[in-house]
């Protein structure tokens, strides 16, 4: 087995309850405890029903959400690709938003300068790149978002369901771009509901259910177990 580049050890996070939830006596939502190692060069898929804790787990992995307990260790740089377009300013031009986004990600101006041609080419925005962001259509906003967000390749790349933006040709183009990033990045974690994409791309798949990883391993086996969970859920619903 290759070297470990990322490790989550008994990591858990409990969502604080709002006053309404406390009043109604709702159970607290806890993600974890999760123990997971990532190996250099592997692509790990994460699947599970909506609300199973996938996005929270990857946010803990990316250092966006600090865990309540447990340890997270990593080497190199980690980047979370999620919520394309977050951080953009409506009054700014595409160019200004590129610098703003880059500085939010911690990239230096020099580094952004070096990536600029690639961002303009990939986004296909041409002269619109120098116009105000608020004049963009939703497709153009998505193009700029994914172009900027995928311009830099980290050592560990985490992708949270961002491959479905833009029109069909841009979707294909961005999926190709992400595949290139996967090839360049040492290690990738990817969340997607697309079974075809996941079995094709991933070396291992982690199946999440009710905030915990219930299976990690062969992609085909993971989807069989996922189907069992969905079937069980359906039969529970129909018996009610």
């Amino acid at each position, binding site marked *: 087995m290759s*070297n470990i580049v990322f*490790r989550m050890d008994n990591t858990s996070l409990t969502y604080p309850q709002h006053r309404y939830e406390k009043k109604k006596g709702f159970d607290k939502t806890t993600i974890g405890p999760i123990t997971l190692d990532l190996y250099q060069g592997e692509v790990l898929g994460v699947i599970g029903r909506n609300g199973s804790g996938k996005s929270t787990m990857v946010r803990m992995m990316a250092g966006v959400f600090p865990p309540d307990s447990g*340890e997270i*260790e990593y080497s190199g740089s980690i980047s979370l690709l999620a919520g394309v377009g*977050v951080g953009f300013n409506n*009054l700014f031009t595409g160019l200004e938003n590129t610098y703003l986004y880059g500085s*939010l990600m*911690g990239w230096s101006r020099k580094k952004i300068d070096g990536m600029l041609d690639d961002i303009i080419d990939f986004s296909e925005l041409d002269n619109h790149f120098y116009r105000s962001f608020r004049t963009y259509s939703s497709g153009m906003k998505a193009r700029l978002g994914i172009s900027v967000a995928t311009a830099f390749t980290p050592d560990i790349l985490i992708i949270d369901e961002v491959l479905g933006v833009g029109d069909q040709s841009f979707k294909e183009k961005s999926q190709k771009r992400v595949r290139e990033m996967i090839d360049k990045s040492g290690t990738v974690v990817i969340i997607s509901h697309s079974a075809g994409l996941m079995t094709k791309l991933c070396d291992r798949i982690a199946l999440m259910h009710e905030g915990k990883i219930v299976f990690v391993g062969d992609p085909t086996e993971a989807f069989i177990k996922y189907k069992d969970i969905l079937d069980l859920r359906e039969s529970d619903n129909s018996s009610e």
Partner: protein
Amino acid sequence: MTNDSPILKPMWGTRSIIRSPLSVITDTWERRELVRNLIKRDLDTRYREPWLGYSWAVIEPTLLAIAYTFAFMILRGKSDPSYAIIVLIGVIGFQLFVKSFTDAVNTLSKNVNLFQFTRIPKALFSVSSMLTNLVLALVSLLALIPWFFILDLEFQAELLLIPLWLLFIGFSGWSLGVWLAPLALRIPDIVKLTQFITKIGFFLSPVMWTYEMLTKLVGDGPISILMHLNPVLVPITEMRDIILGTSSNVPPWGYLLCWILPMIFYLFGTMYFEAKAHKAVVAA
């Protein structure tokens, strides 16, 4: 494990809450490119659309000062040519304080979407708002220039201290507001409460009144001591003295008291912010 195995570093291991007051300064320096872009964003958001652009930074306090001076003249029934500049300095200082305070209180709620997608020092956003307000206050000082000619005031080297006093006012507003940000994200009533406090604060701050009026009214008893805890009292008075060439004779303990609250809130407020902000963002 092979010899060239990557060395794993803890993701949150070095995060120490006690170091938070220092971390704010080091983060601001290390991420100065981001701070610069955020200041540009905030300035553009306010002034890119209006036809008069940045001129509003001068027009707004000038119009307010004219209105307050007019109201004061009606109330007191006499006119003092230097009163308008006294009010103008008060308006610039007080607005800087209030904007830095409210921006710091709202920093998490305004940027929560971003904080849920990127790992970023959250306090930086309130620091950049404070610096934006400082830049605007410095631009507002241009409104004072005509008064130097009208009142025949001297351009002296001491005027260079004005930006430092403005920096202190901005810092005070920020430090008093930043610790409330995690609470404001969870309890919207906090925002309402701070709006109320700033309205009351207008009357308790030397915008329409002066240090001289205060000492005449309350002497140097306990009320005077309490009034000196207001972080804008001494800075606004000092700025007026520098510009008008007067001396309000603020006692040494007055200078000490004006530092106390901002420093206490800076030290403990940044620690509280660091301890609570992450969880507040998770819950939002």
